[in-house]
């Protein structure tokens, strides 16, 4: 077992750490406490990432990236999480939508890429619906061809940063008669647009990133279609399918370390409990699972099959940890609770941890994937 990163990755890490030292304010979550100031800070962070050459490092060089390996992307995630760096408002564009435009977009649509990288464009994803969560392919938002445009009607939910977005990658049904996966088409929308209403959804972790979008006869030009009609599912799978298991698991270890430290600090003194020690093992096991994904990379940055294993493991491990920490620290955890975004008290971490087994593919879906794709059980 060799847990050392390659010399190239360590050099990459050193450059990133040096840049972060100069560019990230350590206590930004306290300095920018209001929603408006937080938005301004995150916009500035997107610009700094771009100016420093750290935006979209995994993008092909022809589109402004540096083609970082899976190992380097894991290092990037690890260091960003270690210092608690913000995501920036443009992260969805950099991670998901940009690669989708590169693969399926027309030359004209690829003009949308530079503003993603620079942070000027903030993208959101219009995928999930109230009646289409895990069963995304059953979505109902319709796109009806009408001359040289489409009319969009329906609603999307859990749209991260929909209230701040300048653009939206939308998945809609263009052929209700086709089998459900085949009747979908993807569109690139510029926001705001007539007929669209955005309603923020306040969250239990005191943040308000999610939104519900209502489309009432929204017009989209046919040139804004991404890929062909009926190719929407392929676009969605591509956009969502980038291997992020290692990066997310390494971020997860930072959440877990943060929770462990808060738990230790909030303890009554004396040796840690069995539950605490169990959580220490799970924190390290999460890191080892992330390393396993990196070490299984065949050079195509697909990360092997360990992604669902890592996601299921760390998300539930963090929840168990936060639950145990809350129960053990009891009244103390409640008295210390700050109902504020990015609060790092135990009660806040407990609430924040609720989402990780739901977003990005529920724990139940991960179990299905593990059982059928990894363990080979029949459907």
């Amino acid at each position, binding site marked *: *077992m*060799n*847990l*050392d*990163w*390659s010399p190239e990755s360590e050099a990459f890490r050193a450059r990133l750490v040096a840049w972060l030292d100069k560019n990230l304010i350590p206590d930004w979550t306290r300095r920018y406490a209001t929603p408006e100031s937080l938005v301004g800070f995150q916009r500035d962070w997107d610009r700094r990432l771009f100016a420093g050459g750290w935006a979209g490092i995994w993008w092909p060089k022809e589109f402004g990236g540096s083609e970082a390996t899976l*190992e380097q992307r894991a290092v990037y995630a690890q260091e960003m999480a270690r210092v608690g760096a913000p995501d920036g408002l443009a992260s969805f564009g950099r991670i998901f939508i940009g690669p989708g435009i590169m693969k399926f977009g027309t030359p004209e649509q690829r003009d949308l890429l530079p503003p993603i990288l620079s942070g000027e464009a903030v993208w959101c994803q219009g995928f999930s619906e109230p009646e289409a969560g895990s069963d995304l392919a059953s979505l109902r938002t319709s796109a009806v061809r009408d001359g040289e445009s489409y009319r969009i009607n329906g609603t999307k939910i859990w749209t991260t940063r929909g209230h701040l977005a300048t653009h939206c990658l939308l998945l809609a049904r263009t052929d209700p008669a086709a089998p459900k996966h085949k009747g979908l088409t993807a569109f690139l929308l510029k926001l705001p647009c007539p007929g669209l209403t955005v309603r923020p959804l306040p969250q239990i972790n005191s943040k308000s990133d999610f939104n519900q979008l209502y489309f009432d006869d929204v017009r989209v030009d046919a040139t804004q279609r991404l890929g062909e009609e009926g190719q929407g599912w392929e676009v969605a799978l591509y956009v969502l399918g980038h291997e992020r298991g290692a990066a997310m698991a390494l971020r997860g270890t930072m959440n877990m*370390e943060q929770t*462990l*430290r808060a738990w*230790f*600090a909030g303890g009554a003194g004396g*040796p*840690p*409990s*069995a539950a*605490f*020690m*169990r959580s*220490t*093992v*799970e*924190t*390290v*096991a*999460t*890191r*080892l*699972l992330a*390393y*396993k994904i*990196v*070490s*299984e990379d065949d050079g195509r940055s697909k990360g092997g099959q360990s992604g669902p*294993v890592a996601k*299921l*493991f760390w998300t539930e491990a963090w929840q168990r940890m936060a639950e145990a920490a809350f129960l053990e620290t009891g009244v103390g955890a409640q008295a210390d609770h700050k109902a504020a975004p990015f609060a790092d008290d135990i009660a806040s971490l407990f609430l924040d941890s609720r989402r990780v087994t739901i977003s990005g593919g529920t724990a*139940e879906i*991960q*179990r*299905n994937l*593990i*059982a*059928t794709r*990894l*363990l*080979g*059980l*029949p*459907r």
Partner: protein
Amino acid sequence: MDMTRSETERTAEDGVLRLLANTTEVTVAIERLADFGAFDIDATDAEGLALALGVVRGVGRTAAPIDITAGILARVAGGVTGLPAICVGHALAGGEVSVASMPEGALTVIAFDDSGASLWEIGDLELVAKGGFDAGCEVTRWRPRAGAQADRLHAAPVAMVRLALVDAEMIAAAEEMIARTLDHLKTRMQFGRPIGTFQALQHRIADAHVAVQAAGLACDYAAALIHVDDAGKALAWLRACHAYSAEAATRAAQTCFQLHGGMAFTAEFWPHRWLRRVFRLAADGGPPERHYQLAARYIRSEDDLGRFITHSGREEVP
């Protein structure tokens, strides 16, 4: 970065699997393992430990009726103490001592307790009970004779190797149970379809797989610390890891047993042999809570916590 086990360990495991395939005869199995050199392993250095881990994993995969760990540990204990004919056991409540698979002619016993280890002469101990739950492993209970005293000794190296070997065999046994259960889920038909199509069963086996995978990686990491990191951290890690892997392996074993239905309860069918193996190893040295408590002694400050949950990052662990 490489998360695979060493070639020594993998080769040993594969070799033992081949040796033990197609035999249920204990004497044949023992002869083959003896020819392989399994009873002569010196597990005090990294290469020897890797070989030992591979061998016990092979034995775990087959649930062979042999307590190979006892033999390897006896050799390690002999090396540490310089004493011949020594074996390894545990101190029990009330002053008694338990020994698993005591070899014939054993003269001394190292009995581990919460604060270290005691060295007993066999002549100072009186046999109280003898029995077996897991084939190949006879457990004896001993009471010190009136007036008998033990010497205290530093035997942490033996304790660490023991934990690493026990966990390697236990995880291997759990992995084998899962692999066999997957075959069963694909072929057993009920309600007109393979039972592996039922989501409830898919989720249970997925949980078992994930838990054992994570525990297995943690055990590999813990074993690797024996020769490269500070002894205090290594022992604490091995204890915490034993507790954790005992929890994961026993839950997985229960799941695999359950998913075989009524047939699992028959003595002729395989699940109970692996179930016994997993639980016997999980119970080694006490319940998980006890091992967590012993491990927790390492963490007295936030700095200790930081050292415990981070890798030193510079050594290549074998």
